[in-house]
């Protein structure tokens, strides 16, 4: 038990200290790093080229450098990334894959090209008609194009075997994480909201193979433990991300346990596993085609609400918390639909508006207190 807790704490710390973790991962693996923008970047390609993929999910960075490019109503994650880039934090990266899921990201791509000519930027576009034959083909072509750029950075071709191994490695990571989140949901005493988040987030800054091995050890330990009985209410978080981490402290303060999440930064990274059939790139494209219920990918069925209801049932949860990152349009469009669906199903739903760099959490504290009382 102690050994398991030790690994959990180690990953927790890794997730909370990105800079230090990335430095260590690079030193231990001897690999150079490539930054990967949210929401889904082709990490498998990066990994197969022998680079370390690093998730770029903003941070608490404040500043005024980005004001040169962005108005005040830009989401805090893209502002933070831009601040970090302009202040030189990303100079250690050998390349950055920029994606364009929303209008803000398209502009970030363009501004960065102008503002940061010394960085090796690899822009890419994910198809929205990702299930249609045209979209699947486009996705494969886009992966192939990015692969060629990575080959150039690497100074050599990526073999099909290397690529297959990388996709398999990511399958393994995703399967492991699915197992982990199931098991973690039985341990509200161990996995406070903040710790659960940090442990999952650590994957963004570590070599996936190393991380997955550690997770397997944690799983092994957790399997032997009896589920914990506490007085927590069980909630499901949905949104782009649930940061700043101080907000997660407020969940614990109000005895709210994250039984599962539908966050782009967390579970959506591993909720879909590539099918086994086809070439590595075909498998990757299929995975994107299968990724439903995510606001950043076209979904005329709007299946996110149904997914949330399923999660609630599966994880025996009491309520849903909609974590709205301020100025994130796609999520802002999803909320009214989710609200309606949850009202019809009589599922308690709380909407909280977050910014990565928010200083005052008083209002959110009050709202969480009130919500926790309703759930009692």
């Amino acid at each position, binding site marked *: 038990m102690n050994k398991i807790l030790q690994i959990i704490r180690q990953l927790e710390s890794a997730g909370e200290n990105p800079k230090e973790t990335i430095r260590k991962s690079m030193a231990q693996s001897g690999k150079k790093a490539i930054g990967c923008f949210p929401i889904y970047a082709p990490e498998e390609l990066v990994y197969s080229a022998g680079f370390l993929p690093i998730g770029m999910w903003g941070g608490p960075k404040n500043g005024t450098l980005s004001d040169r490019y962005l108005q005040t109503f830009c989401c805090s994650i893209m502002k933070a990334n831009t601040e970090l880039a302009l202040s030189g934090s990303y100079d250690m990266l050998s390349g950055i894959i920029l994606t364009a899921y*929303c*209008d803000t990201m*398209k502009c970030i791509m363009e*501004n960065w090209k102008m503002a940061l000519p010394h960085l090796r930027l690899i822009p890419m*576009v994910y198809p*929205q*008609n990702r299930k*249609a034959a045209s*979209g699947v083909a486009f996705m494969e072509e886009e992966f192939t194009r990015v692969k060629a750029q990575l080959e150039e950075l690497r100074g050599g071709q990526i073999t099909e075997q290397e690529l297959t191994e990388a996709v398999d490695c990511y399958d393994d990571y995703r399967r492991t994480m699915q197992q982990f989140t199931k098991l973690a949901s039985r341990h509200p005493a161990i996995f406070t909201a903040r710790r659960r988040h940090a442990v999952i987030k650590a994957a963004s800054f570590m070599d996936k193979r190393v991380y997955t091995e550690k997770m397997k050890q944690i799983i092994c330990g957790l399997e032997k433990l009896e589920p914990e009985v506490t007085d927590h209410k069980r909630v499901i978080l949905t949104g782009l991300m649930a940061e700043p981490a101080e907000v997660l402290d407020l969940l614990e303060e109000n005895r709210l346990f994250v039984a599962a999440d539908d966050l782009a930064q967390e579970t959506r990274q591993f909720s879909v596993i590539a099918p086994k059939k086809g070439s590595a790139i075909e498998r990757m494209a299929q995975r994107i085609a299968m990724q439903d219920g995510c606001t950043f990918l076209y979904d005329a069925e709007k299946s996110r609400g149904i997914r949330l209801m399923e999660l609630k049932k599966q994880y025996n949860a009491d309520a849903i918390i909609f974590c709205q990152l301020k100025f994130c*349009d796609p999520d802002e469009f999803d909320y009214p639909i989710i609200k309606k669906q949850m009202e019809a199903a009589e599922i308690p739903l709380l909407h909280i508006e977050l910014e990565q760099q928010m200083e005052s959490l008083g209002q959110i504290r009050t709202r969480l207190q009130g919500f926790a009382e309703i759930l009692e």
Partner: protein
Amino acid sequence: MDNKTSKQLLGELLDRHYAGAMQAKQEGKLVAWATSISPQELLTTMGIHTVYPENHAAAIGARKCAQEFIDYSEGHGYSSDICSYARVNLAYMDILNSEAGNIPKPDLIVCCNNICNTVIKWYENIAKELDIPMILFDIPFNHEYEISEQNTNYIKKQFLEAILQLEQITNQKFDYDKLTEVMKISTETSIWWKKAALQARAVPSPLNGFDLFNYMATIVCARGTKEGRDLFKLWYEELGEKAKQGAGPWREGQELYRVMWDGIACWPHLADTYKVLKKYGINMVTSTYPDSWYIVYDTDDLDGMARAYSSNYVNRNLDFGVDNITKLVEDYRLDGIIYHSNRSCKLMDFRQYEVQRRVEERTGVPSVVFDGDQTDPRAFSLAQYETRIQALVEMMEARKYREAEDHE
């Protein structure tokens, strides 16, 4: 169209457009809602009556009716930070009544994200709430200067997939001969639209640029029709005649400064924004609009059509944006640029500062940015707007003075 002016015809055409859609609905025919730069060719070929929520929301805004719709949407959980066209339209979808005119409820929706990705979310919600089919034309953002072959192929394939979807929805065979005809007319209409707008290159400009905002509704909804084409041809001729006579944009008052307007109009404050400019003798001679509907390709060339739908400036990279405006500065002999930082449109806004800097560096033409919104009346301050315009006048005047001195 004997003896009628293009402006009269414009009003009639729009009335017929909306009345026709209402009638089609009553007769049980299919009605579509579509985004403003959609491949309407496919819908026109299928005989589907198509109306454009952006046009309608703009009309609601211009008639100062937007607030009630915005309040309704926000009351249903929509954030005040999202596009106000969407907030107006998603409320209209429920309310279905406005003093500014009505559009029928759709049976299908057609979304083309060459104007932004926001429309995908907006249209998804319509499809979900009304339980109707949605066709998405996914036009990849061009981060490279030119439209790549990869993007062109993807778009073209989607045209063919959409035709199959339309055949299923309508239970009709797609008529490729008719498509040829519609493609031809659509291109001609676009060409006349652009030619008319280009008349404003004359000094003084025969065109009062705010008319672009009025005529825009027609290029959106009548691009695939002969009457649309003929209207723009007539407008072109009228402007040509005015230019020949050396007539300026207004009956009274001289055109002292020529500027371009970047972004969408502030519909709820259209008259105010116009009057302030006119007061200082500023004529908005062009904007990014003329090129946005310059959707030109060879008949029967689906690759060309794919490229054309991917070519509008908001879907292009920043280098293109800078070249585009630089060219407008030269072609229209501009004295200044007004950038509308439109609270609704992140895609236009978040490149504006860098474009402004680069265009100014290249052309020396002064510019100002003001805060506003396309339909939310709350996000605009007339005082701020006028102060910025005054600043622009001072800068334009100083530049003229400097240039005159250099000549001497």
